[in-house]
């Protein structure tokens, strides 16, 4: 079996919710030893967020949690208790990387901020990722990605028209931007440490990281004062460009996405539609861009009775970008995701076989893998205390009695 890319890297993971756990998942699925420190006194809120196996709640039954915590081990330490903090500190010298995503006062309050941790592990790499960064007047803002997606502009520019309510992206959108950048910079920091022996502290503001996905609009505003508005599916590059309703399927509506970049593709689209008579303004790219609304009405009328999947194949044969608008159920049946090996059914001790999202990239020589399903809450507490800290059963029982291991 091929080795994993990050085999032998040790990670102490204090993270919860989404940004932190997804970041450490990149490391865990690539072979790093990731110990997730959690507590029933302050549960990772995703353990109590749906969907749940069989639709039934339980702290070990959330697929929301499971998706972000594969290949990790879980120890429960009640860090409000000084003995728990002492145990955590004893694990720090083992760690190459520490990651946390609390509001900045939490690790400081436990005397477990970077300055404290580097005393016992001088070349430690530590990454903190809170909403707005470790410094500045808003550093202590609590919250989830939904708020960040609004704060960083994504909600405003999602919708049909500036005068309507926004139609924001589903959920905590920016939580899915930051981890890609955080994982990249962590691995780069590991490489730097190997070359120089130097660890460091990395402050990732989710606000700042997310704004890179809006950079053109920000540069534009600073330069010209233009404020990017929600514009439905209108594009300045493609016309037609949007989602168009096709024939219903099994009593449910079905839409197709289509984007036409040039005249040849437009002719291909017309061929597929049987070359219906159309507005002469549609003959040029500029005409189509300038009359996109009329164009949308035209196209909508001509695809309404078509089958979206058949239409996709026919358009693709002509080189026109098109794909059905897929629901989550469709994703589980999508042949391209299937062929990439995206979905994984992992056997979880409490959930049974559960559907996990897989990796988004494949490495040919050292492929990552969902090495194990998400851990049960505290599943590896005893194992970690025994093997790594040399505690015996009696000591562990006492700690448990003292409320240290909950």
């Amino acid at each position: 079996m091929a080795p994993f890319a990050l085999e032998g890297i040790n990670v102490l993971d204090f993270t919860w919710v989404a940004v932190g756990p997804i970041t450490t998942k990149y490391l865990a699925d690539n072979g790093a030893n990731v110990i997730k420190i959690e507590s029933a006194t302050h549960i990772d809120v995703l353990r109590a967020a749906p969907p749940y196996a069989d639709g039934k709640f339980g702290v070990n039954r959330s697929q929301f949690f499971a998706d972000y915590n594969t290949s990790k081990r879980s120890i429960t330490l009640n860090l409000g208790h000084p003995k728990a903090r002492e145990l955590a500190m004893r694990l720090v010298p083992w760690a190459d990387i520490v990651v946390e995503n609390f509001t900045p006062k939490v690790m400081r309050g436990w005397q477990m901020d970077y300055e404290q941790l580097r005393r016992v592990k001088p070349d430690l790499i530590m990454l903190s990722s809170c909403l707005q960064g470790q410094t500045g007047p808003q550093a202590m803002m609590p919250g989830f990605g939904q708020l960040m997606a609004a704060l960083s502009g994504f909600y405003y520019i999602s919708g049909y028209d500036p005068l309507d309510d926004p139609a924001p992206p589903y959920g905590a959108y920016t939580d899915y931007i930051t981890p890609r950048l955080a994982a990249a910079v962590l691995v780069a920091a590991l490489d730097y440490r190997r070359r120089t022996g130097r660890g460091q502290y990395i402050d990732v503001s989710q606000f700042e990281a997310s704004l890179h996905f809006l950079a053109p609009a920000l540069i534009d505003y600073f330069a010209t004062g233009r404020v990017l508005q929600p514009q439905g599916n209108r594009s300045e590059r493609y016309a037609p460009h949007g989602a168009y309703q096709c024939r219903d399927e099994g009593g449910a509506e079905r839409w197709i996405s289509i984007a036409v970049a040039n005249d040849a593709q437009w002719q291909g689209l017309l061929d597929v539609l049987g070359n219906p008579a159309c507005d002469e303004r549609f003959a040029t790219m500029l005409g189509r861009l300038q009359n996109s609304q009329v164009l949308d009405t035209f196209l909508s009328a001509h695809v309404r009775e078509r089958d979206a999947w058949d239409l996709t194949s026919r358009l693709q044969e002509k080189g026109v970008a098109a794909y059905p608008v897929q629901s989550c159920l469709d994703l589980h049946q999508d042949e391209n995701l299937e062929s990439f090996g995206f979905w994984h059914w992992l056997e979880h001790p409490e959930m049974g076989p559960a559907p996990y999202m897989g990796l988004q990239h494949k490495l040919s020589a050292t492929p990552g893998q969902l090495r194990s399903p998400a851990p049960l809450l505290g599943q590896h507490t005893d194992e970690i205390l025994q093997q790594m800290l040399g505690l015996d059963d009696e000591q562990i029982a006492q700690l448990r009695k003292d409320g240290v291991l909950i």
Partner: protein
Amino acid sequence: MTCELLKGLRMLDLTDDKGAICGKIFADMGAEVIKVEPPPGCSTRRIAPFLDDQPGPDTSLYFLAYQAGKKSITLNLECADGRRLLTELARKSDFVVQSYPVGYLDSLDLGFDSLIKTNPRLIYTSIMPFGDSGPGKHYAAADITVWAAGGNMYLMGEEGRPPLQISAPQAGLHAGAEAAAGSLIAHYPRQSSGQGQHVVVDMQACVVWTLMNAQAFPILHGGSMKRSGVFSGALRLRRKMVFRCADGHISTLLTGGAAAASLKAMVDWMAEKGFAADWMKRQKWSVWAPGVISPASDQEIEQVHDLEDRVQQFLLTMTKREIYAEGLKRRILLSPVNTVAEIADDEQLKARGFFRPVRHDLGGGRTLTMPGPFAVLSATPLAAPQPAPKLGQHNAEIYGGLLGLSASDLSRLRAIDAI
């Protein structure tokens, strides 16, 4: 000032809008990123909108943002000399990242299998809209069609109106950032094993990874979530995520349970201003979490609607700025629905010096303000933002300096349209 993090490493960037941000991230971390452009220029130079609405090879806002900090060379891959030059460059590089149609570079003997032979240490990353083996591997793709294929579009928009994309296309940015992470994960073992490898990024899968908790609902609970405007939710409850205020919109999380302290603070604030109902003043919010662990009851649904209505009336009395300032003080989970203008004026970003002026050689000199580093590193600060290159700006430096070609070699290559 360059960054020490990836200093000394070189990347050849052959991407379009499916991956441009990958090389940008590498440049931020100190790698030398060479954008290899066909002689007419990379297609991202033609992406509207343009600075001052003046189309030109150097004024695409997309290009200015995501090719920043890179070097540019021109190279015609369709001729033998061009292919030889790229092979030479790959021999001297640590990374190649490309997003050409699947199989195109292979057909020119510039695919992974060819280049790994000339440079066994090479990390070669390919960004593909629908992977490398499925029935759609040759599908034409635009950002919006991958957004649709990956399931995000289905969840955005209002019932009765079309599904939506974000009005700044995102799928290619996710794929590009994923390519940066994947390339570095592959890089780490290479530095000791000497073994290069192929990294294939699946852009559709990258979009699936933006769906938060939605993917497994149809399997575990039955039924896919649907687009529902400003509402979101499951387990019988549609929760309102966005409210109007005097001058725009506010997003807030009106959930109890784990977020009880925030909801209590919101209700206390409303009570001070006479907007809270009696039941709200009495409610113990830590045990109130409809639709979180089990389907909401009829009574809970009624409570949510009453709460949402009253919060709406309350927020209409204030501006975004007033609500955000007070929300921060009271530690309420809320934020303004910001425009880019409001982001540009944000106190926190100003205090951290996030936006940076960058001198550009445009129309006699122009300073553009750009987003600063995506992270703050104590030992190896990321590079400050840099201008994007002019087409072929670094031909002499790269072909002359790196490959050691003479001036006459260069003019010969130019004459046969190789560069």
